[in-house]
């Protein structure tokens, strides 16, 4: 699903440039549930953004669903994002003047689904994350956990192949963290590839594979005990 070979990324800072990713090799198969851990500034978000086509790498190869990502124009990236990827952010990133339902339906709008169908599908996904009753509430009327569940529903609504989550539980307490993780586990059990960044060992422990980054290189990459207990896809 995701294959990364000798990936490099630097950010120019004035005349200098900082080398953030220094040759990453990573292969994530369809249906995996991977977490990335590492200290702050180790390059986790940078890696996820490149995988999510929100940013571009400098060197190395990146294949998404077998397709080499190179010289992406914005239009093509937008279409690929809409088709293959779903995002969940630490800060939820819901559109404040749209209701939960409208937020969830928005990716379908860009996919060209008509309004009626769109709202039906969105409602289905809200139900799935247990927020059907909250469909017509604005984001600021929801708790952090509820917001993140809306964001997850939005990430799922286009049936992406990969869900990318950058510290999805970073702003949540332990109970809501559990409900969000349960949701991600459910998605993964349905066969979706899930890729999360986290700082919390408990969160990482609930995934099937943990990749540890340090100063832009992968220092460890191991499967967790969950791998055996859940059927391998």
């Amino acid at each position: 699903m995701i294959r990364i070979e000798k990936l490099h990324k630097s950010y120019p800072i004035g005349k200098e440039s900082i080398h953030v990713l220094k040759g990453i090799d990573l292969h994530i198969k369809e249906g995996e549930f991977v977490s990335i851990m590492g200290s702050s500034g180790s390059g986790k978000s940078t890696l996820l953004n490149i995988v999510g086509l929100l940013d571009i790498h400098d060197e190395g190869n990146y294949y998404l669903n077998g397709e080499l990502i190179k010289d992406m124009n914005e239009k093509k990236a937008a279409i690929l994002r809409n088709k293959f990827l779903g995002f969940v952010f630490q800060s939820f990133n819901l559109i404040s003047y749209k209701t939960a339902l409208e937020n969830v339906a928005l990716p379908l709008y860009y996919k060209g689904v008509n309004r009626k169908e769109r709202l039906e599908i969105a409602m289905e996904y809200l139900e799935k994350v247990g927020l059907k009753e909250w469909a017509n509430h604005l984001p600021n009327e929801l708790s952090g956990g509820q917001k993140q569940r809306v964001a997850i529903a939005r990430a799922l609504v286009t049936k992406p192949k990969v869900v990318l989550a950058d510290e999805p539980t970073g702003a949540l307490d332990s109970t809501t963290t559990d409900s969000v993780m349960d949701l991600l586990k459910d998605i993964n059990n349905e066969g979706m590839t899930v890729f999360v960044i986290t700082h919390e060992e408990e969160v990482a422990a609930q995934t099937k594979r943990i990749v540890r980054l340090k100063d832009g290189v992968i220092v460890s990459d191991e499967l967790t005990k969950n791998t055996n207990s859940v059927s391998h896809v």
Partner: protein
Amino acid sequence: MKFIFDSDSWQEIYGSIRKNKVRTGITIIGVLWGIFLLVVLLGAARGMENGFKKLFGDFATNSVFVWTQSTDTPFRGFQKGRTFRLKEADIEILKREFEGEIKLLAPRNQTNNLITHDFKSGNFQVCGDYPVLDQIQKKKLIYGRFINENDMLTTSKVTVISEDMYIQLFDKGVYPIGAYVKINNINYKVVGVYEPSNTINLDGDSAYIPFSTFKRVYNTGNNIDWMVITAEEGINIEQMEKDVILTLKNLHNVHPEDKRAFGSFNLGTQIAKLTGFLTGMQFLTWFVGIATLIAGVFAIGNILLITVKERTKEIGIRRAIGATPRSIRQQIILESVFLTTIAGMLGIIFGSAVLFVIDTAFGQGPDAALVNPTVNIPIIIIAFATLVVLGTLIGLIPAHMATIVKPIEALREE
């Protein structure tokens, strides 16, 4: 183009406008004001023009009136202060000298007389006129006809009276044509009744009789009270006025520099002054209107730019979930065009409403200052099209700004 008819595009615009009520209101006011000014000022200018047009009515607007007064300079042995009369012979000379320049020339004599019919009577002006007068100021005839060549040749005692005279002198329902009225105790057959023009009016309520008849009855000899001259198309009326008077001065032994001997009034120059004023006003109107409009559209562009900045994060989110740069641009441009056109429409509606009020308040009645203050539909359409074009153009800038930021940078924005 499909996206314009897509209800979802409008849903999005509605959402964004609802979120920014104040800025939407303010921007709309800018454009609204511009269009409003344009509509109202153009309408008022039009109303004024119509008012002037109505004022001159059916009167040939390139006319000069010439009459005699008294000399202010001694000349060829004559004392100053001499009075003299225009003569019939002058007419022939002028016609000959100004062949191709003078189009129509109407010598006129006038007096006041008692006019009676049965037991009713009134004091009215009586004019001795050539049939050509009808071409200089078209008479709206209710009954019958105006004086003709035949009346002139036969010096018939016929008259054309005004509607008011008809009402005053005749019993209700009596048909006037063929009836006789007494002017200064002489019987004249009524051949026409005209409706006095409520615009520029030379004669008020006058009874017209043939010039030749007037000459015989009132014994005016070769004298003429005054004359009306109209110029051929393309002739400089002002120059013609000067030349005609100079010729007349020569004929009547008046010093060429004499300022008082001849009186004249040049309708053409007066109208030219007014027309110039009107053109100036219209120019000013367009200038003010368009400048305001442009300022308004720029305000919209500016506000959209601010909104785009405010919405950088939102746009980043949209792009993360699959919005193409094109769909973002379209949305912003559509919003810009929508705002400008809505504002434009409101401006046109308010402007028209104000014109309507002006029309009801000042536009009615014969003495109206503004007549029919309206704005052409084509002008409205042009203004409207301009708005759409300007709205699109100005929307391009924020639309471009919205998409040059990389989605990841947009998302990082707080």
